[in-house]
């Protein structure tokens, strides 16, 4: 499969086409919109579905196979802000608060991008470690906390403590609904194993693709509405939003390769490293770094990096992984 074919297979999947439809609906100012409860319902469904599936996979693979790539994934997420922060601060000339906020978003992860990547691997027939969902769960919070610490260290007045801001954000980052649902359903999947999976499969497995398509339609609308903000963020951040996933994606694949994951698993770790958070990170950052401008970090992660990864970033990570393993 060439890179072009890989991209084509991704762009012509129902999920990505529905995303495009959503962007189109927002651009032409259609009256199409999802009610808030439906949006919430779809996110809960998706997180629980992949959580259970991941938990069952952990129970059959055993924790012994998981700890090394899991630990590596956590460190990878936590380390990403250490190189993105200086780039934003000194190459981009952004204030410390904005640079730290954006760095936190890019170190953290996007669950939907991950789900779309697993979907893509299924469609091209490449097996992957289902327990990779655990990486999604452990990569969400560390970078957010690191970003906040970086900001507080850079902007600290003499004698000011760093700890309170980190503590309030830690609650958001560790007990926000996405991490809570993911970790909770991973545990439930782990405890119940494949016998439990059989009971819920008709609800959580069979309709999954349809729900994902519907959810991406809504994400297309949300991202499409933000496209107008691209004018406000300037060319540096647009370039950043595309180049950073390329670098982090390759880093993620390399870490996956080094810790013994399969081609599919390394691709997923690459996609996780390449993705940027837009739900958990903004919630925590808004509380801990209120002086950072939300237009910058939300536009970068939601209107630039998310569509980029969904369309090109995912097949790119697969191509990098194939190159690594050949």
């Amino acid at each position: 499969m060439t890179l072009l074919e890989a991209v084509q297979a991704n762009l012509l999947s129902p999920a990505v086409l529905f995303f495009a439809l959503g962007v189109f609906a927002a651009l032409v100012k259609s009256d199409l919109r999802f009610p808030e409860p439906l949006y919430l319902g779809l996110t809960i469904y998706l997180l629980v579905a992949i959580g259970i599936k991941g938990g069952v996979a952990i129970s059959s693979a055993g924790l012994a196979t998981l700890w090394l790539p899991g630990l590596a994934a956590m460190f990878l997420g936590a380390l990403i802000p250490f190189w993105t922060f200086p780039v934003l601060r000194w190459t981009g000339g952004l204030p410390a608060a904005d640079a730290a906020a954006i760095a936190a978003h890019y170190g953290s992860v996007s669950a939907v991008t991950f789900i779309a990547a697993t979907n893509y691997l299924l469609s091209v027939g490449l097996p992957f470690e289902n327990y990779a969902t655990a990486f999604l769960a452990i990569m969400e919070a560390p970078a957010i906390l690191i970003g906040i610490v970086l900001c507080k260290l850079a902007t600290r007045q003499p004698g000011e403590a760093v700890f309170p801001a980190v503590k309030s954000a830690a609650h958001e980052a560790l007990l926000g609904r996405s991490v809570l649902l993911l970790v909770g359903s991973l545990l439930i999947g782990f405890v119940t194993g494949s016998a439990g999976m059989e009971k819920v499969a008709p609800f959580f497995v069979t309709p999954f693709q349809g729900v994902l398509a519907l959810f991406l339609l809504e994400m297309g609308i949300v991202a499409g509405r933000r496209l107008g903000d691209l004018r406000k963020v300037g060319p540096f951040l647009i370039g950043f939003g595309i180049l950073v996933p390329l670098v982090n994606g390759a880093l993620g694949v390399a870490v996956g390769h080094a810790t013994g994951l399969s081609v599919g698993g390394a691709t997923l770790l690459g996609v996780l490293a390449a993705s940027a958070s837009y739900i958990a990170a903004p919630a925590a950052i808004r509380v801990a770094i209120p002086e950072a401008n939300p237009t910058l970090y939300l536009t970068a992660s939601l209107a630039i990096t998310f569509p980029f990864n969904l369309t090109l970033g995912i097949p790119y990570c697969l191509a990098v992984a194939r190159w690594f393993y050949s």
Partner: protein
Amino acid sequence: MKLITVVCEAYAREPVLDLLRSAGARGWTLFGVEGEGARGGRTADIPEFSNIQVEVVVRPEVAAVLLERLERELFPRYGMIAFVSDVQVLRAGKF
């Protein structure tokens, strides 16, 4: 009696409610809203990106404290507006 109406970003929910309680309000009403203002349009389909409106009826002396604290503690941190109106209430003892 004074009716204080606060319209703010959804992230400010807990800080606003904490402030209301500690300033002496005995209850509140909250609903999700959408609108447009200094920070652009705020649509209501993703709860984190939407606005909320908090309404609270308090005695005039509590209202003064509340508004002063809102302005000092929360206005610098969150997207937020607040306004006060005179209202007549039934069962004044509840406030």
